[in-house]
């Protein structure tokens, strides 16, 4: 079996340019790997026919950029025209979009090849991908473990090297947490950096699409490709798109790095803390300044998240009513019956739970008591982060309190799983960019990740630090159980 997909992006690009390989070789290899590792359940829908066709089409085109011909997987809450997009829900299990998300257009502009749609938590609601209507994706490092969520399928397929690149979405850690569990690089860009047009909305003020890749360089390249203002998304930024690879390889001497006390408190697993401590030492040894700081309200982030995200979700998911598209119940007696049964039968438990809680939180006086109050505290937290960035270049800490856990753990405790995201949620609240870079393994050889948080639109600096750590550690990130 060929191993082109294990080569670096530059090596693949050279082979394509010299015509030693064709895009179809990459696509064929990706599908071989996917078929051999179907037990990971990383995909909901595959598009072999479309991908092969696209690969053939590219044979006549000039290899015009580094991402040319590269296979990519797309999280299944991002609209792909003519390719089923389910949000891992029964509600949309037969939904064929009639338009492409802006990021999908951008991916296609770079002549990347879409392989399929990744498994996830239903409507991105969860941190284990277990709420998927299509079964749970598995962690390639240990298939009895979760891949995390909600972008679990994207993390799993990149970690197993089935595809080199994937897109995920991150509302409360959904790119960083599964990236950490699966040992890959995942970036949640600054809110507004990447267009949300075509991303099925979960919590509009928090959602952001981002790249999930094998290494830091690939990640920065993919971010280059998908960033930029979009006239279809009023919340997308006019900030100029810079080359996010430009600081990779630069020295980190003199860089000022902060670690929030909360990130290294007792809520975090000891092995993870030790690994992060080692990184702090590594940075100090290489001329960086590392100091501990406090961020206001960071410990309340999960509560704020639950109020804001569920409130917004209850409204965003109102459109799934059985009238125009998606699942519609059989023989409704009247309009009320249509609504009730469509939503009762079409949504899974976690989604219904969040819609109910969200509706309650926005009802009557609760909107002022909870939602508006949460927005105020969120603003204060954002200001506290901004203040930290007046003094520091970056903030670091772990992404998760534990490593990937058993697929059957915490199943009957829906509120417990929110705590999986206690360290990643503050970033969404503040609209900041946050990423995961793998920094080691625990005693069971499950990946541990470092979270790097940057100031708004300073993704390049984050990649600089991440690439430095990646190079210094030089970890073997190829899971052994993959066929």
């Amino acid at each position, binding site marked *: 079996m060929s191993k082109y997909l294990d080569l670096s992006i530059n090596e693949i690009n050279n082979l394509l340019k010299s015509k030693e390989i064709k895009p179809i070789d990459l696509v064929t290899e990706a599908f071989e790997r996917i078929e051999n590792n179907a037990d990971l359940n990383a995909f909901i829908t595959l598009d072999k026919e479309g991908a092969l066709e696209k690969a053939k089409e590219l044979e006549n085109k000039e290899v015009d950029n580094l991402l040319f011909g590269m296979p990519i997987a797309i999280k299944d809450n991002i609209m792909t025209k003519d390719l089923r*997009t389910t949000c891992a829900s029964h509600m949309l299990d037969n939904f064929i*979009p009639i338009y492409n998300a802006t990021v999908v257009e951008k991916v296609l502009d770079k002549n990347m090849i879409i392989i399929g749609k990744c498994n996830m938590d239903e409507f991105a609601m969860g941190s284990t991908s277990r709420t998927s209507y299509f079964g749970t994706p598995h962690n390639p490092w240990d298939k009895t473990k979760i891949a995390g969520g909600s972008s679990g399928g994207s993390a799993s397929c990149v970690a197993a090297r089935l595809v080199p690149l994937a897109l995920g979405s991150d509302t409360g850690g959904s790119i960083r947490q599964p990236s950490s569990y699966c040992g890959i690089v995942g970036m949640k860009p600054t809110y507004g950096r990447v267009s949300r047009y*075509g991303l099925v*909305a979960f919590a509009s003020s928090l959602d952001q699409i981002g790249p999930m890749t094998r290494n830091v360089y690939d990640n920065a390249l993919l971010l280059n490709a998908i960033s930029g203002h979009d006239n279809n998304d009023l*919340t997308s930024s006019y900030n100029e798109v810079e080359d996010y690879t430009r600081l990779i390889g630069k020295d980190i001497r003199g860089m000022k790095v902060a670690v929030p006390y909360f990130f290294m408190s007792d809520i975090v697993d000891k092995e993870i803390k030790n690994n992060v401590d080692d990184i702090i030492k590594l940075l100090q040894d290489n001329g960086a300044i590392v100091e501990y700081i406090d961020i206001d309200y960071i410990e309340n982030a999960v509560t704020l998240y639950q109020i804001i995200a569920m409130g917004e979700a209850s*409204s965003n998911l109102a*459109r799934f009513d059985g*009238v125009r598209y998606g699942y519609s119940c059989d023989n409704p007696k009247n309009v009320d019956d249509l*609504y009730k049964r469509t939503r009762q039968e079409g949504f899974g438990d976690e989604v219904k739970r969040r819609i109910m809680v969200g509706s309650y939180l*926005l009802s009557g006086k609760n909107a002022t008591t909870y939602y508006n109050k949460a927005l105020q505290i969120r603003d204060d937290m954002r200001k506290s982060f901004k203040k930290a960035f007046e003094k520091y270049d970056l903030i670091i800490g772990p992404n998760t309190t534990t490593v990937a856990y058993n697929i059957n753990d915490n199943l009957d405790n829906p509120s417990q799983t929110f705590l999986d995201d206690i360290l990643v949620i503050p970033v969404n609240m503040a609209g900041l960019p946050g990423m995961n870079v793998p920094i080691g393994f625990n005693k069971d050889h499950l990946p541990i990740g470092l979270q790097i948080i940057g100031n708004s639109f300073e993704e390049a600096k984050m990649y600089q630090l991440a690439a430095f750590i990646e190079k210094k550690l030089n970890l073997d990130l190829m899971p052994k159980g993959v066929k």
Partner: protein
Amino acid sequence: MNDYKTTVGIEVHAELKTNTKIFSSSCNGYANMANTHVNVVDLGYPGTLPTLNEEVIVKAIRAAYVLNCHINELMHFDRKNYFYPDLPKGYQITQSRTPIGVDGYVEIDVDGVKKKIGIHDIHIEEDTCKSIHYNNSSLLDFNRAGVPLIEIVTKPDISSSKEAVLYLEKLRELLLYADVSDCKIEEGSMRCDVNVSVSKTSNLGTKIEIKNIGSISNVGLAIDMETKRQIELLENDNILHEETRRFNEKNNTTVLMRVKETGNDYRYFPEADIPFVKLTPEYINNIIKGIPMLSSQRREIYLERGISDININKIIQNRELSDYLNRYLDKGINLVIASNLLLGDMANYINKNNVNIDDTCFNESKFIEIVNLLDKGEISSKIFKEILVDLFETNNDIKTLLEQHGISKISDNDLKKIIKNIIDNNQDNVLEYKNGNERIFKYFVGQVMKETKGSADPVIINKILQEELSK
């Protein structure tokens, strides 16, 4: 029965006259076919996001200005959440916390007494789609989904059906002249809901809403009928409950639609898909400067230029006509004659043939020339009538038209000759005139007109005739 006080509040929805919809690039305009002015955003497809049409901001600021509202400089939207088949997203994007305009008024003239009707607020929102009930099923037309609306909510300042009608007429005129909406109530681009209550005390009575009344005069009728109904109920010791009714045009009654549910909870919260828009004072001022001349100013100018009250009212009722007349404000022509032509023979032709004057051959320079000829008495209105059709339908200049109709302008000398001739041939009548029968003078005028085929100016005829007859 007379000691009841009626209190009315009115909510008007006006469609804004924009090229595209409020949150998408779909056309906002008349469509022959259902569901043709529609895209994924209007349908509320998963993943779609709203954009914001700047035309809507402009028109809404104009409305806020002409209704004397305070304009909120920080513009934002909220979501109003409820389930209904005509609501594609399951929420309506509207303005709850930050309406574009607040605390304004509309001044009306009630039998010569000026009264200010307070405006509580004006807010921007999107229209829903249209449900069409057909053969036991409901069909949805999304052409209307996302059409921009402003909702104008009065304070409970209206105390009679007469005031309500005056308010609506004035509101319609203001919005029409500020180019905000075409306000065609019959076509649904202006919709009125009224809240009516009656009370014997200073406390307001139970508020009853009457929805979607089809014309301004019916608003007046509906208020009268509803007031009467409520008083009768109260006089018979009934208790009123808040409810929504509709007006039945066939028998002029109001009919119950539904009793208001308590605790109708729309779960309003800020729309995160649309960032706050800061409207600077400069931006707002520029929009205000761009407001076309309002009806009040037009009335003043027309009055100054000598147009009669009746004609002024007729002109103001027809915005297009007023706009046309205004082109000549600085052309130094007699506006009284111009307005007479426009409201008379020209209006007849235009209405009969259903044309736009600018699509005809009757261009501005011809109009100016005609008004001046009439003003100086060089042609009579009879002659104008004679050449009217040709003015509209041919490119010939006025001189040619007059010639073609055998009407050449007669010089004073020629006229004198003709008059002398007539006098010479009618000595009997001259004698009778000189003996004091003044009616004979009219006979001579008639003869001259006949001879000149009406092409001579009656004023000049009179002058020459008098000279000649007194010799």
